[in-house]
């Protein structure tokens, strides 16, 4: 006892060492809070801030000026602050049935596209899982390959394929199957093709990731217990791949609803989708407040599926 206390008095090293390690600990804690902070900064700058700007514009009035909307806050000369908020833009959207029709049509197109992607993507993902290791890698590569060329270029390529004098019609006429070209471009049909084609990988990849974790023995167990293949699919495989189905569906559904390029290029003026309407309000009508209100309503329409997505992501994480 006495020896140690004497040592502590004589030797000043331990407290100094303590100070150094304390500093190191504090710096470490500092780093940790910075690392945690970065995503918040990101979310604030690139999501929350733009959202507030759009929200602000959506409650302003149209004005022939630059920028083309009224200020939210006005300072009178005597120093009195007035806030002007109007919900006319929103009532306008709800009154004019062009908007509600367009929203419904957008949701219809994105829902049907999502279902088509699921119906096509599910067997593809299942097929990839069931193939040998080499084939599996090649097939996955093929799924990702289209991302290497520009999205716009690929949509233009579809225009070339679907046009009245396009490749498909030419081949069909040459084969003698049809006399007159079939009208495919500038129709909802073309928009479906474009969306399903573009978003299919976003369906397949989460499904693949989910199915990869699936234990193939479970199928054998089910068969052993007397379950036919079809029943096994609905009672075992489908429930266990539900997280992948939900993730893939939302990854298709959410961006497809707000899609602009595909309906514009492949649908022409014939397909109403909210993305195009938004673009028109902003650019042709230069009505930023209405455009912003359209965007805000779209956002709230998509919050529900996004919440579902978050919920299932969280649950999937818990299960592991």
């Amino acid at each position, binding site marked *: 006892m006495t020896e140690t206390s004497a040592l502590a008095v004589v030797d000043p090293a331990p407290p100094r060492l303590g100070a150094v390690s304390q500093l190191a600990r504090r710096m470490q804690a500092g780093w940790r809070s910075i690392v945690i902070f970065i995503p918040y900064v990101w979310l604030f700058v690139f999501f929350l801030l733009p959202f507030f700007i759009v929200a602000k514009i959506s409650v302003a009035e149209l004005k022939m000026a630059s920028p083309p909307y009224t200020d939210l806050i006005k300072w009178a000369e005597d120093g009195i602050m007035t806030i002007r908020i109007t919900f006319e833009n929103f009532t306008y959207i709800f009154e004019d049935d062009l908007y509600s029709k367009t929203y419904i049509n957008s949701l219809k197109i994105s829902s049907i596209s999502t279902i088509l992607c699921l119906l096509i993507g599910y067997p593809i993902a299942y097929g990839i899982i069931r193939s040998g290791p080499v084939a599996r890698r090649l097939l996955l590569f093929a799924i990702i390959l289209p991302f290497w060329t520009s999205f716009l270029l690929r949509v233009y390529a579809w225009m070339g394929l679907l046009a009245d004098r396009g490749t498909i019609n030419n081949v069909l006429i040459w084969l003698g199957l049809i006399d007159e070209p079939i009208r495919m471009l500038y129709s909802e049909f073309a928009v479906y093709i474009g969306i399903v084609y573009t978003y299919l990988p976003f369906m397949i990849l989460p499904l693949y990731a989910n199915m990869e974790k699936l*234990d193939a*023995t479970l199928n*054998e*167990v089910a068969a*052993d*217990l*007397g*379950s036919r293949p079809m029943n096994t699919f609905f009672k075992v495989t489908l429930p266990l791949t539900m997280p992948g189905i939900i993730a893939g569906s939302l990854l298709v559904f959410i961006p497809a609803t707000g899609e602009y390029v595909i309906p514009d290029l492949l649908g022409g003026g014939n397909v109403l989708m909210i993305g195009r309407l938004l673009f028109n309000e902003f650019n042709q009508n230069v009505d930023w407040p209405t455009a912003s209100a359209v965007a805000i309503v779209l956002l709230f329409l998509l919050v529900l599926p996004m919440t579902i997505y978050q919920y299932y992501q969280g649950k999937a994480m818990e*299960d592991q």
Partner: protein
Amino acid sequence: MTGEQTLSDTPWLEQGAEPFIKIRGVTKKFGEFTAVDNIDLDIYQGELFCLLGGSGCGKSTLLRMLSGFETPTSGSITIDGMDMSNVPPYERPTNMMFQSYALFPHMTVEKNVAFGLKQDKIPVAEINDRVHDILTLVELQDYKKRKPQQLSGGQKQRVALARALVKQPKLLLLDEPLAALDKKLREQTQFELMNIQEKVGITFVVVTHDQEEAMTLSTRIAVMNDGEFMQLGTPTEIYEFPESRFVADFIGSANMLEGRIVEDGPDHVRVKTDLGEVFIDHGQSVKEGSRVWIAIRPEKMHLSKEPPLKPGPNQAFGMVDDIGYLGDISIYKIRLENNQIIDVTAPNQIRPKSRTHTITWEEKVYLHWQASSAVLLTK
């Protein structure tokens, strides 16, 4: 059992007894590789039959052919008089307990067990009763609502067993049912498994690589190697009367001496080995002068510090090279004159007075064994 038909304990010895499972000339090839090689086997009603062998010898493949997940390349399988060639797994009167248990992760214990019954369109009330009964049998009635992730290894094993048993199959196939359990639990579960099998009266075919497990559980054992049966018999037959060096060595341990036949009498055999003469008190028809092996189990050798009273056959001496003290028994490694090491085990029946062994390292010791102890092997 209603008592009309009493089953013999050893149906394989009965004249004209009809086997429950008939495996005839079954071969399974994966490409060029032969996993199961021309197997013939009869298994009888109520047996607890073990397929025993090292990893990769084809045990699981044979089991999977019984359950229908693999199709034999050639040969036929008959279960309860029905040819299984074109019967898919979901129509076979068998159920299998998988090595990995493979419980459905999205279902509770109860739903897992009920799954098989639902396929048979059984009324809900009956399903509930049967699930309850079987869960009581495996002592899991309080875990009905749990998900598999919330169970211990031993509990998962019992759910898997219950799920396979609840359909009351004619034949239950178990692939390494206890391999994932720790030693204590495994030994305890072995006896539980035997009790359950006795209660339900279903024929079990168990695959294992653990010879102790096979010895404890089975009515009969088939020892497999490279897709072939090396020997088929009761645990006692396999242990005491191995027919080949492979079996003698694989089941338990055996000291192997090489030698030549000196005399082959009607009731005895004499073999010359490096250690001197070995006398075996039962006849065996082998040609004089031919090369043979003698297998002697470590526990059948006697160890002594005193030299034998008179020299004779079945004796040897050597130095203690090493001692393995296991508590209940000790293993002595004895180095003989020709440098061969012989294992001898001796029970520690008397608690030593001092903390040292009575026989210690580098001591000269004498070995002898009875004329009935040595097994003569020709292959």
